């Protein structure tokens, strides 16, 4: 097994494990705060998956810093030695959106707690029909 394959299994495995753990929490847990935590963990897993898909072997971060320019001389040569920056930019957006989702979900949990005095979804009867 090559190094690259080990890297691939580790990163995809970790990302998918995080997604599965998050989904497990969302499906089985009864506490609303734990469900929100599960959503947040799923978010991290998806972000890791994105970054892993954008990885290109033996290439560096997409920043044209002075040291990178000194090593590769021209912009074209430096650009050839860099990983895909688009997934990283998308993940930057996804992290911010994930933060917003978590914040609003937790605020809704607080609101439900004020109304029902519990965060257990089994005890909140209005959620059932």
């Amino acid at each position: 097994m090559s190094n690259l394959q080990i890297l691939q299994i580790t990163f995809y495995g970790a990302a998918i494990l995080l997604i599965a753990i998050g989904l497990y929490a969302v499906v089985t847990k009864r506490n609303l705060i734990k469900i929100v935590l599960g959503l947040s963990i799923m978010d991290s897993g998806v972000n890791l998956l994105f970054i892993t898909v954008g990885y290109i072997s033996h290439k560096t971060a997409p920043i044209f810093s002075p040291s990178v320019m000194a090593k590769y001389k021209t912009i074209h040569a430096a650009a050839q030695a860099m990983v895909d920056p688009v997934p990283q930019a998308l993940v930057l957006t996804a992290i911010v959106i994930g933060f917003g989702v978590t914040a609003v979900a937790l605020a809704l949990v607080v609101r439900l707690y004020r109304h029902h005095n519990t965060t257990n979804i089994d005890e909140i009867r209005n959620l059932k029909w």
Partner: protein
Amino acid sequence: MKKAIAIILLAFIAVELFVVFYKIPFGADRMNVARFYLENSPKKLGVANAVTAIVVNFRGFDTLGEVTVLFLASTALGSILFRRREIHTRLSHLRTSVEASVIVRIAGRFLVPLIILLGAYVFIHGHLTPGGGFQGGVIIATGFLFLLLAYRKFTIEHRTITFVESLAGITFAGIGLIGIFLGKTFLENFLPAGKLNDLLSGGIIPLIYIAIGFKVAAELTGILDTVLSISIDVKQKEIESQTEKNE
């Protein structure tokens, strides 16, 4: 039983997902549009950090939407958690009944200016180093969180936060509109690109990232203040139940 079914189902989903992703060639170069971004962000824009160039310039409209989502989240949080303060107790202006320890309070005096300086550094250098407006804004908000946790009398003026947030938002949209007035597209660069890796390079990108930094810092500070105000409600409930018991 329920949990076992859930675990089996999730294991099935995870294995299927893994098999699908395992078939994608790992570490292979499959850039199309990214190649254009990588070549043009230093050449045309003079921006060293290609991710910043994509977030603020090539996909700047997307970022405007992202900032709007963050604004919407902070507004929604305020409106969901809003509660008219009818009960004014003796301690209602204090967040907690216990003062933070001496170590926290003294450390706050030294650390908070440094935290805010670090945040400002991160968003001013967003086009040169990893980081940018969002990250710098979050760091500044942690400084304000420190103040809120360390000093229970410290309050955040919501009018100031709204003012900073609106000003930053108007700056972002206004810079975009100037591009249209100069006969270019929305959010297109109209300033000289400058030399690669200079602080004053990248045209409008540092300006927009500074505006985003202020906006994110103001929004997150507002969110933290709103969330911390819940503890006031909880404390008031405790005081109410205490007085009920006494009566």
